[in-house]
């Protein structure tokens, strides 16, 4: 093995790829070669480093210097000054701007964060199984296969208090237990990577940044419940994720970590990829299974649940990407260790994606129970342009909208629902005071009206009507009756829709009416938008 005096990590997550990180990487490699430094300095393309809107981002170790918005033309300077002469190019570190992070591991950005799920993201080369193994990869699978009975594995996961990170927050250990107990000749593990909640891109970046953690976790789940086949159902739009996981499966097979008789244990497990074709509702687990069986992605009536009647009618575990990424560390370090993070009701961490009016957009992982204020002002660098915070939507487009009074509410799967909101998938959309609530509400409702699958009446008709009414308000044609109608319709949908889509579509409207009612009313009574920014 060769030793290098410096490593240059180039973020290869999709947001950075879009900003041209591939050309920067190639320029770095070329420049290092030109100066004869290619034997001393190694360039590694990693998964997402976090600050997505500063891309392309590179970090130089051992110093931990973060260079942001790097252009190909900056590369010769970075190589010559920093890597040859050892002088940090301060003008490119973005010092004093936004976050003031010259060192990646320093101040606010990583200090408040706790990285379990993203332990390898932005650190290892995701296309190298060797680097994953060097970072303790596949050790949890080996431990399960050689030291633990399947029931022990389930017990640890149960004890850890891990709940599903896709949004529904169902206890993962319990889910596994149902499938383990079910009597069947064949069982399946499905990784739900059909991430479609607007504002959420964590699963994409986990798959791109650490694909082997998902492969390992699926094999562990297979061993625990007695399944020998797994599927990763990925959105058709996620090209790079599909490539990385494909490559990962091939590597794991070549090393005997997937396939027949893994590590001589007698346990066999294989993974296939299924590509989605564009349907938000397929993130719902029974709709996803319908789609995998070649049908329209329409949810099934539950119960029975997939844990006993899933893919092809067989017992099936369906877990979200982030949920699975938690599994290997829980197996290795134990449930007590995991319970040391987050809150007693909701242990562990949560990966959030910050979008909208916030200085530092991107991917973060923080302990459960952290406040919105800490996320926005300490990690996210606050609101740009000195504007005032107006509201944050937690949990994606199907989540609730919280006003400034709620900035200190602990963010976890139990507290937020008590406020009428949801933690959901971990999307955080921050809005400043320049935005009109009614205009945003129309954007939300248009989304649901177009994504409703049409199977059940409350959702098919309800989402369309919600959109019609909000549109009417946004155009200045609303009446007082419309608000009552919105509330009535929302209640009906929450109680009667078949799946989570129809049940949660009214959540943003309900919370907006609760916290920003006066803004709706002024659109009706005064035909006036208080922010003056909507099309009224």
């Amino acid at each position, binding site marked *: 093995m060769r030793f290098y005096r410096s490593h240059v990590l180039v973020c290869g997550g*999709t*947001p950075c790829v*879009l*900003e041209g990180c591939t050309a920067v990487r190639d320029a770095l490699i070329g420049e290092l070669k030109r100066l004869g430094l290619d034997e001393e300095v190694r360039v590694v393309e990693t998964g997402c480093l976090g600050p*997505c*809107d500063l*891309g392309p981002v590179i970090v130089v170790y051992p110093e931990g210097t973060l260079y942001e918005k790097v252009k190909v033309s900056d590369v010769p300077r970075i190589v010559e000054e920093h890597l040859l002469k050892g002088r940090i190019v301060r003008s490119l570190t973005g010092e004093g701007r936004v976050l003031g992070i010259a060192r990646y591991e320093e101040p606010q950005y990583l200090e408040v964060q706790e990285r379990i799920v993203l332990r390898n993201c932005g650190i290892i080369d995701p296309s190298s199984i060797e680097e994953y193994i060097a970072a303790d990869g596949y050790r949890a699978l080996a431990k399960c296969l050689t030291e633990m009975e399947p029931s022990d594995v389930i017990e640890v996961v149960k004890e850890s208090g891990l709940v599903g990170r896709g949004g529904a927050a169902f206890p993962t250990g319990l889910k596994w237990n149902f499938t383990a107990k079910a009597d069947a000749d064949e069982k399946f593990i499905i990784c739900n990577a059909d*991430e*479609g*909640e*607007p*504002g*959420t*891109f964590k699963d*994409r970046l986990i798959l791109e940044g650490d694909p082997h953690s998902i492969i390992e976790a699926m094999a562990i789940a297979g061993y625990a419940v007695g399944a020998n086949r797994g599927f990763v159902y990925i*959105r*058709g*739009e*996620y*090209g790079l994720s599909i490539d990385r996981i494909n490559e990962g499966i091939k590597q794991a097979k070549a090393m005997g970590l997937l396939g027949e008789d893994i590590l001589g244990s007698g346990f066999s497990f294989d993974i296939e990829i*299924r*590509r*989605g*074709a*564009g*349907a*938000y509702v397929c993130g719902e687990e029974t709709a996803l299974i319908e*789609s*995998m*069986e*070649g*049908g*329209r*992605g329409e949810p099934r009536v539950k119960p029975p649940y997939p844990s006993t009647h899933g893919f*092809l009618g067989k017992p099936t575990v369906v877990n979200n990407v982030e949920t699975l990424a938690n599994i290997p560390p829980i197996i290795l370090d134990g449930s007590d260790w995991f319970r040391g993070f987050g809150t007693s009701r909701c242990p562990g961490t949560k990966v959030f*994606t*910050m*979008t*909208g*009016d916030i200085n530092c*957009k*991107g*991917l973060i992982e923080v302990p459960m129970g952290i406040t919105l204020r800490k996320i926005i002002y300490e990690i996210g660098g606050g609101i740009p342009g000195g504007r005032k915070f107006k509201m944050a*939507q937690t949990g994606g*487009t199907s989540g609730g909208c919280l006003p400034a009074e709620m900035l200190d509410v602990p963010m976890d799967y139990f507290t937020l629902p008590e406020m009428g909101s949801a933690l959901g998938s971990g*999307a955080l*959309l921050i*809005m400043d005071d320049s*935005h009109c609530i009614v205009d*945003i509400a129309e*954007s*939300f409702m*248009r*989304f649901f009206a*177009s*994504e409703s*699958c049409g199977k059940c009446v409350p959702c098919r008709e309800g989402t369309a009507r919600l959109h019609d009414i909000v549109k009417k308000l946004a155009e200045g044609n609303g009446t007082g009756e419309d608000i009552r109608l919105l509330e009535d319709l929302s209640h009906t949908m929450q109680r009667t829709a078949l799946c989570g889509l129809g049940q949660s579509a009214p959540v943003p409207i309900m919370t907006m009416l609760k916290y920003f009612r006066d803004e709706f009313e002024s659109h009706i009574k005064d035909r006036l938008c208080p922010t003056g920014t909507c099309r009224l």
Partner: protein
Amino acid sequence: MSLDSLESAVKEIVQRHGGSEYELVAILNDVQKVCGYLPESALIQVAKGLDVPLSKVYGVATFYSLLSVEPLGEHVIRVCENAPCHLLGAESLVDVLQKELGIPMGGTTSCGKFSLKYTSCLGVCGVAPAIMIDDEVYGNLTPDDIPVILDKYR
């Protein structure tokens, strides 16, 4: 594409997927790659090949947003107008795209070069607003970027 070559292409795709009804979504994806969209004649072939009713195949073909039973332009432009993109000005991108191409959302240019559609969230909200042209995603866009990007495809 002639009817004969379409027939053999569809046959090959169905075979590649083991003639399994469960692979219908993947089969339609592949057929669309060959034909550019899903013409009725191809749907009939798929239904025959899998021995399922045409109504089932049509139902699936019209359910997913990445599949189309209408002819599409050579390049498909998908614009995300979900909340994170909306907040950061996706509407102004829609205006410029419609003006530049001279077609409304959902339309195809008369030369057959471009189709313009809305898309569900592309999952690149960190660099919102974003659009996707064929398989290529563009982020951090302003209206001024649009003509420059379109020129690459013209």
